């Protein structure tokens, strides 16, 4: 068991007129090596939730265990938690500050107190993990890179700490299609090759459908749905009521089913849709 969350509640500004309950009694278990998608409309508590997982926020009540270690207890080493749980914030490139790419990526490992050789090795590795050429880019200033490259430098900065759990808050927000596909491809590869547990926060139902094993839906500080993307995307009305939606292709298949009874509409990716349409055409020649 990798992450266990018990009765987690977080209240901002308690006992003041501005009191707001951002998280309301959350219970959740995430296994090692899972790829989790986290969706919910703005203000549903996603960001508050993920900041609890590496100790940036302390729960008002409830407990969080990472590999059996209670990270909400007082005497826990925050550095250790932040090493184990890597958190990539939204627009992560805004955290870059060093003169060179290599130095910036080394910031995390340096804070962990690693040796020079180990740091250099990790910088190399993590740049390779996100598809950046070490020799070409290491001495460049992070500020002269493209948006997608900057974001990957920021992700590499987290990966260089070798986290067992990687949380990404909208890693593709504001990127062009090419940058988006590259980053998503690398995240997928990280999960497959290094078996890192990944929690992906996203507003793109397409990305979620393509990547995750399990999907968690938050609404007003509560977990309201929890299951495979296929299960959850089959409840389109409920999702729409929560201010969310389903992948475009699923809408398309639902519309198609109205004309064409023999087709399945629980399809969530374009590839699946292609297979299903081909099957339907070959199986029965239009009824």
């Amino acid at each position, binding site marked *: 068991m990798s992450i266990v969350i018990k009765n987690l509640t977080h209240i901002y500004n308690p006992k003041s007129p501005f009191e707001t309950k951002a998280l309301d009694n959350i219970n959740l278990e995430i296994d090692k090596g899972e790829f989790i998608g986290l969706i919910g409309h703005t203000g549903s508590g996603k960001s508050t939730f993920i900041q609890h997982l590496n100790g940036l926020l302390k729960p008002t009540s409830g407990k969080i265990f990472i590999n059996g270690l209670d990270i909400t207890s007082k005497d826990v080493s925050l550095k250790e938690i932040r090493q184990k749980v890597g958190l990539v914030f939204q627009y992560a490139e805004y*955290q870059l500050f060093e003169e060179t790419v290599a130095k910036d990526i080394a*910031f995390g490992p340096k804070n962990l107190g690693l040796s020079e050789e180990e740091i250099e090795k990790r910088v190399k590795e993590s740049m390779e993990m996100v598809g950046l050429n070490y020799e070409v880019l290491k001495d460049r200033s992070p500020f002269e890179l493209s948006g997608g490259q900057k974001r990957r430098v920021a992700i590499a900065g987290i990966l260089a700490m070798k986290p067992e759990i990687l949380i990404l808050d909208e890693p593709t927000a504001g990127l062009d299609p090419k940058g988006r596909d590259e980053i998503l491809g690398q995240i997928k590869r990280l999960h497959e090759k290094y078996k890192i547990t990944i929690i992906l926060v996203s507003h793109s139902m397409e990305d979620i459908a393509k990547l995750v094993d399990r999907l968690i839906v938050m609404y007003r500080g509560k977990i309201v749905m929890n299951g495979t993307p296929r299960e959850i995307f089959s409840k389109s009305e409920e999702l729409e009521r929560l201010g969310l939606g389903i992948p475009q292709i699923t809408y398309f298949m639902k519309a198609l089913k109205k004309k064409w009874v023999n087709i399945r509409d629980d399809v969530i990716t374009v590839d699946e849709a292609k297979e299903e349409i081909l099957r339907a055409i070959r199986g029965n020649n239009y009824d």
Partner: protein
Amino acid sequence: MIKDITIGQYYPGNTVIHKLDPRIKIIITFLFIIALFFIDKFLPYLFVLGFIIMVISMSKIPVKYILKGLKPLLPIIIITFLLNLFMTRGQVVFEIGPLDVTIEGLNKASFMAFRLIFLIVGTSLLTLTTSPISLTDGIEKLLNPFKKIGVPAHELAMMMTIALRFIPTLLEEAEKIMKAQMARGADFESGNVLNRAKSLVPLLVPLFISAFRRADELAMAMEARCYRGGENRTRMKQLILNTRDFIAMSIMLILFVIILLYRYL
């Protein structure tokens, strides 16, 4: 910590004091400060106290809120008090070690402390009851006559408005960046002064970059809406003097005259 400083923080309301013309409020505050420095006896303080109590009760600002604003300045008040207490020569009342406390010292110390407290409360009443926007509007209007000698009144006011507008944004941004660096193991809380100052680099560099970026974007957005300074610019809210403004001004002038009379008669 930053949240605790209430001096200069607007306290929304809909009272007569809030509705006064910002120009009048600025002038009254200036006169008030000048008057305070004319006072050399305790008796006129009673009038000042009465004036302040009247303004506070009319503005419906909780006294607790105003006292909270005094808190960060308490050390300055105490230091001034102690310095005056021990440094004034005169008839000795009692001694603490090598230090003498004199009647004149006690007099002067409490006199100075009162002056400081009135000064702070009086000026903070201005910003407490005036929204930053109308405050800068007032400043712009008051500086208008100086435009002829090259004072860029409109530009100054616009700069102040923008600066005030971006304080909360920058605070939010700072918190975000701080969290992002803490997620990379940065430590802002422990270590000695030098280390702590060093640890601010990962916070300040991105903060400055984003401030410059925001400035760029804002300039662009303003230009896109054809902003070009103050010339021939009309405003949505015209500042018009009302009866209440004249009444307020008269009360202040009466107070001012009373204080002058006490000083010179």
